[in-house]
């Protein structure tokens, strides 16, 4: 009896849910982004990108004849708020899929909600924990940090740089990068001869760099987001250090060169997502056209350059709408469609999902670039 009642109520809820979605003839997609607060540099472009894409899709007649509606909430970068808003999106707004949250902490907090409510979640955060181990309803768009790290180490191996110094920031991005570089270095037979850190707000890193200079490593890998790496780049020049300097994909924007100064940044190498460098990648690159379109459209709508972070929401949108086109617009259909995504050309890379990989990006998502005369140039 109990089971029957439960089934009935599930059916009932299902009917209400389906009818509310059908009657309006719209597909509701939820967005959870840290539009304000410390992670706003992620959330703001993500929100703007999603809004732009939804308007654009509706202007072109929607998806499968149905209009799209984006319900976007600002989490302020707060995990507790993200969980409340995720529940609200699912229960009150009846969205069929959620794009976001922006940060790893929020994503980890929202995952149990998505799993319990059976709503596909396409996170825009980079943390490896989000999709490893694989969760049934959870996907993510940014490539794992270790893919970028591996790109650097492969390049170093090719140039016989075996001993390197590590300089990482003491926030989530830096410590996750530090762990992954250490694991990779061990696997690939590199020696880490110095392991230094700095705080996100530090204004002078000459002490750490003087120590590193004394050890004479073959290379320095710095893992952080602006402004720290720009300060480090200036300090390296000040101290006259000639050791090759590698940065993470976290500073793959012109802003970094501008902050550090073209002069000091000359010769710095880093793995960049292709959006930052779309004007220097080969014309026949499958992503080249889409990247250019995105950047131009974003500039036209908002007057600023598109950022890699906004690209994560773009990926989420393409993945979800791709799944809807293929399989249909219920939560379960979208989930299956997401998992079966193959060769989807998007902003962060070319997605190939599988039941074992809910990220779907590999090393081709990054290119090694070098700063040359204040601009990026490809390195082979």
């Amino acid at each position: 009896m109990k089971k029957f009642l439960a089934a009935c109520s599930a059916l009932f809820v299902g009917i209400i849910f389906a009818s509310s979605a059908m009657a309006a003839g719209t597909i509701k997609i939820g967005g959870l982004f840290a539009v304000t607060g410390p992670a706003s540099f992620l959330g703001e472009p993500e929100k703007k990108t999603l809004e732009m894409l939804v308007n654009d899709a509706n202007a072109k007649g929607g998806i499968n004849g149905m209009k799209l509606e984006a319900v976007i909430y600002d989490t302020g970068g707060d995990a507790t708020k993200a969980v409340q808003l995720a529940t609200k999106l699912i229960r009150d707004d009846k969205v069929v899929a959620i794009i976001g949250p922006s940060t790893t902490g929020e994503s980890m907090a929202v995952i149990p909600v998505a799993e319990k409510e059976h709503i596909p979640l396409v996170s825009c955060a980079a943390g490896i924990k989000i999709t490893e181990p694989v969760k049934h309803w959870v996907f993510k768009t940014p490539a794992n940090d270790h893919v970028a790290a591996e790109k650097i180490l492969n390049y170093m191996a090719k140039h016989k740089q075996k001993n390197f110094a590590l300089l990482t920031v003491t926030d989530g991005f830096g410590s996750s990068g530090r762990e992954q570089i250490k694991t990779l270095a061990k696997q690939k037979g590199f020696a880490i001869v110095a392991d230094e850190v700095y705080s996100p707000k530090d204004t002078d890193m000459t002490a750490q760099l003087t120590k590193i200079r004394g050890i004479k490593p073959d290379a320095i890998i710095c893992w952080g987001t602006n402004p720290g790496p720009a300060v480090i780049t200036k300090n390296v020049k000040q101290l006259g250090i000639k050791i090759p300097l590698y940065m993470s994909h976290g500073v793959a924007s012109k802003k970094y060169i501008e902050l550090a100064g073209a002069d000091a940044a000359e010769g710095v190498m880093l793995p960049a997502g292709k959006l930052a460098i779309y004007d220097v990648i080969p014309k026949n690159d499958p992503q080249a056209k889409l990247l250019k379109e995105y950047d131009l459209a974003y500039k036209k709508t908002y007057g600023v350059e598109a950022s890699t972070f906004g690209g994560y929401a773009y990926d989420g949108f393409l993945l979800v709408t791709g799944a809807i086109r293929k399989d249909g617009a219920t939560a379960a259909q979208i989930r299956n469609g997401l998992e079966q995504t193959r060769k989807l050309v998007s902003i962060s890379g070319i997605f190939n999902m599988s039941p074992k990989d809910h990220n779907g990006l590999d090393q081709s998502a990054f290119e090694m670039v070098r700063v040359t005369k204040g601009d990026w140039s490809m390195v082979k």
Partner: protein
Amino acid sequence: MQFDQILQYTLSGLSTGAIYALIGIGFSIIYNSTGIINFAQGEFVMLGGMLTLFFMGPLKLPLWAAIPCAVLISTLTGIVFERFAIRPLRQPTPINLVIITIGGSILMRGLAMLLWGKDTQSLPPFSGDEPIAIGGATILPQHIWILGITLVIIAINKLYFYHTISGKAMRACAYNRRAAGLVGIDVRRMVMFSFMISSAMGAVAGIIVAPLTMTAYDVGVMLGLKGFCAAIIGGMSSGAATVVGGLILGVLESLGAGLVSSGYKDAIAFIILLLILFIRPQGLFGKADSERV
């Protein structure tokens, strides 16, 4: 090699320390004339840098003209802050005042974020960025600017507080507000002066460090805290003791990061702060006098 390294640590430490000192003096000037710890001091540091960028960017002024404009606007902000947030308070208990200054700092930070965005920005160095070698260690021309300007400001401070009527009046307020009022000193005006001077100094500090450390709407928090540490080490004196406090802090941080571990760099500053507060609350050099307790 080892000597070179120590020299580099010391020089780096001295130049960061000079910044802490300049901010620290801003704290002590206000503290001495009002008894308030002005937690918005760091925001004036931010204002200095951001306003200079604003005058150079959208308003297209050259650097030498943008700097006085930025200092002027920051000083006006300081006056407005004192006039409309501090003075109207009926019962200025320390806790009320502290909360008001914290509120003021959040307000200023928020406005700066709305006006100028969240991006970090960089100011061009005053005179090139070719490193200068000093016996195996290197510093930048900007470091010399920082050390030089800090020294000049401290000298002016000394002159003002010991050789002008209004400076002496401010010191009188610091010793005893009531008595100062009784001998005809306008205490409220002195409080306003103290906000003026320290906001101007904060702004100068923010401007001279911006080419090195870059600036953003939220740089004031950490720099303010370090400046506060310097002031505590110096026993809240508005003279040489705070300067030495700032330099000690900078050098210890730098040596700690270089010789021990960079992970403990900030911890070093705060351990020193706690130790001083526990063992010598009157500051490293102060006599244990009763006036300030």
